């Protein structure tokens, strides 16, 4: 089996970041996230051995704010001089299975079903993903219940923490080519992989989608939604939430159109120009979030939009817990 010594991770990252922007799980101040290796000054606190980082790498492929094209305006004039395509080569190093699955969700959303989103496509095409297998699920992890194998992330290469070394496993053709480039840092070694520790929460997701179909008007939504203040934190921190808004910035005759993250938890999200809103109440918006994650996405793409990373559970200021919600849905009577 090929392995890389843990001491060689920093040289590896240094080398890779000469050609690509390399995003690595690191701690920065009171935050942790996938930060660009070159942008980190001084001592770099790599968090490959932590369960995961606070901010998922969704920003890498789907920046929170992204300029799409420039605009020029004048009397009766409207032109688009430039379209911004970000063709930089990128590496996401050390992504966990839950966050990698979220990228698979993004691939389905942005690249299939009739249209290919060119901005996402360009970035995605030039990105290599190195997964980091999880053997020790955390307190809020439930990826396995959502159909994800924590030790086999959707990635080009997967590394497995085996003490002083990482086992190195090339998965895709891209992963094999990538492995060749760094061959000199790898070595052959016989070793056993660790055992996956048990999850603190496991449940059977089978049947939840079918159960939810027809529960749209169920009274349980009122009870579940009542503590929610529609703050949107859960959607911003969620690796798989992909909603965006399109807006513009213009000074005088020049400007640009950009997109930025948005959330179905916000009133403004569905507010119509004429003043109407199909989801006027807090509860309507709450229900949309959970139904999108747990039912609608499966109806469209065949698997749920929640990857079980548990972040929303850790960040919700009002203790709303998606595992509890799934369990409640499983146990209530479908008929109101």
């Amino acid at each position: 089996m090929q392995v890389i010594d843990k001491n060689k991770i920093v040289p590896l990252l240094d080398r890779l970041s000469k050609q690509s922007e390399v995003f690595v799980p690191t701690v920065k101040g009171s935050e942790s996230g996938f930060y660009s290796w070159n942008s980190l000054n001084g001592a770099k606190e790599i968090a490959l051995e932590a369960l995961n980082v606070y901010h998922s790498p969704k920003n890498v492929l789907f920046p929170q704010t992204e300029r799409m094209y420039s605009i020029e305006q004048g009397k009766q004039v409207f032109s688009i001089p430039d379209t911004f395509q970000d063709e930089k080569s990128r590496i996401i190093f050390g992504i966990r299975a839950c966050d990698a699955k979220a990228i698979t969700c993004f691939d389905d959303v942005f690249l299939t079903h009739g249209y290919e989103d060119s901005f996402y496509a360009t970035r995605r095409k030039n990105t290599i993903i190195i997964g980091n297998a999880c053997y020790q699920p955390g307190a809020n992890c439930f990826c396995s219940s959502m159909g994800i194998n924590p030790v086999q992330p959707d990635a080009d290469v997967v590394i497995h923490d085996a003490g002083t070394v990482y086992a190195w496993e090339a998965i895709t053709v891209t992963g094999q080519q990538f492995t060749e480039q760094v061959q000199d840092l790898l070595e052959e070694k016989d070793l056993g992989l660790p055992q996956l520790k048990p999850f603190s929460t496991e449940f059977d997701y089978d049947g939840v989608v079918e159960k939810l179909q027809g529960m749209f008007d169920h009274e349980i939504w009122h009870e579940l939604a009542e503590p929610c203040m529609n703050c949107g934190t859960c959607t911003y921190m969620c690796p798989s939430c992909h909603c965006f808004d399109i807006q513009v910035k213009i000074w005088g005759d020049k400007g640009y159109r950009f997109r930025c993250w948005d959330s179905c938890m916000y009133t403004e999200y569905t507010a119509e120009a004429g003043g109407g809103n199909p989801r006027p109440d807090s509860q309507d918006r709450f229900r949309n979030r959970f139904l999108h994650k747990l039912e609608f996405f499966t109806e469209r793409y065949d698997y749920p939009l929640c990857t079980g990373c548990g972040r929303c559970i850790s960040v919700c200021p009002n203790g709303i817990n998606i595992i509890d919600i799934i369990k409640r849905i499983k146990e209530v009577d479908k008929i109101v």
Partner: protein
Amino acid sequence: MCSCNCEQPLVPSIVEVIDIVDETPDVRSFYVKCSEGGVPYSVQPGQCSMLSLPAGEGMFSCTWQEGNEYQHYAIKKVGLLTEELHSIEIGQKLGIRGPYGNGFPVEACKGKDMLFIAGGIGLAPLRSFIKYCFKHRDDYGKIDILYGSRSYADLCFKDELFNLWPQEKNTQVYVTIDNAEPEWDGHVGFVPSYLEELNPNPNGKIAVTCGPPIMIKFVLQSLEKMGYIDDQVITTLEMRMKCGIGKCGRCNVGSQYICVDGPVFTRTQLRQLPQEW
């Protein structure tokens, strides 16, 4: 030639406004074509385009596309962007991207009698289908058009409504306004009640309706009462849109995105969607 931006679906192409016509005090028609001539892409009846000024984008149903000559959008002033659109003049450049949505099932309706029921600006999308029927007149049976607005002044496309369409073969046009007016000697009352008065026989007929959500809800009820089965009833839904290509998330009703899976739905399909429209 295709001058649309298929490779970059979120980036508009530019068209020019070649004519502007006032339909009502708050509805204005815009005729657009590419500066080098022709239309940016071909739109089927019921499909939409994302039109833009530098300040913003908005989704509008194409009211009619005349061959490769021009596209026509009738736009009601309801918000920020539409207010700005109402202040532009002929020659203005607009951004455009599309075509979006599924459009009306013009093929599947061939051989059927058609009943069009519209309220207010709801006639704008239906008009593309109505004109399509007239263009292929022999493919469709009897055509009934029932249209209502708040007042006489608010009726769109008056010339067609009162002069052109009634002269088409085997066609009846019924117009109503909400409240009586001194100059008006036509029908007075809401669209759904006029519909029930007329009580058109459902046999071999397809009903297509579009208008304010509340009108649609009542029209659907009336049609059901009159014996129309779900597959005979077609409507269009409206939601706020941003991307138009099923990515940004906001136009969903259940698992359907109105921008790509709609805006046209049969009543049968509608029944499978949550009541969130």
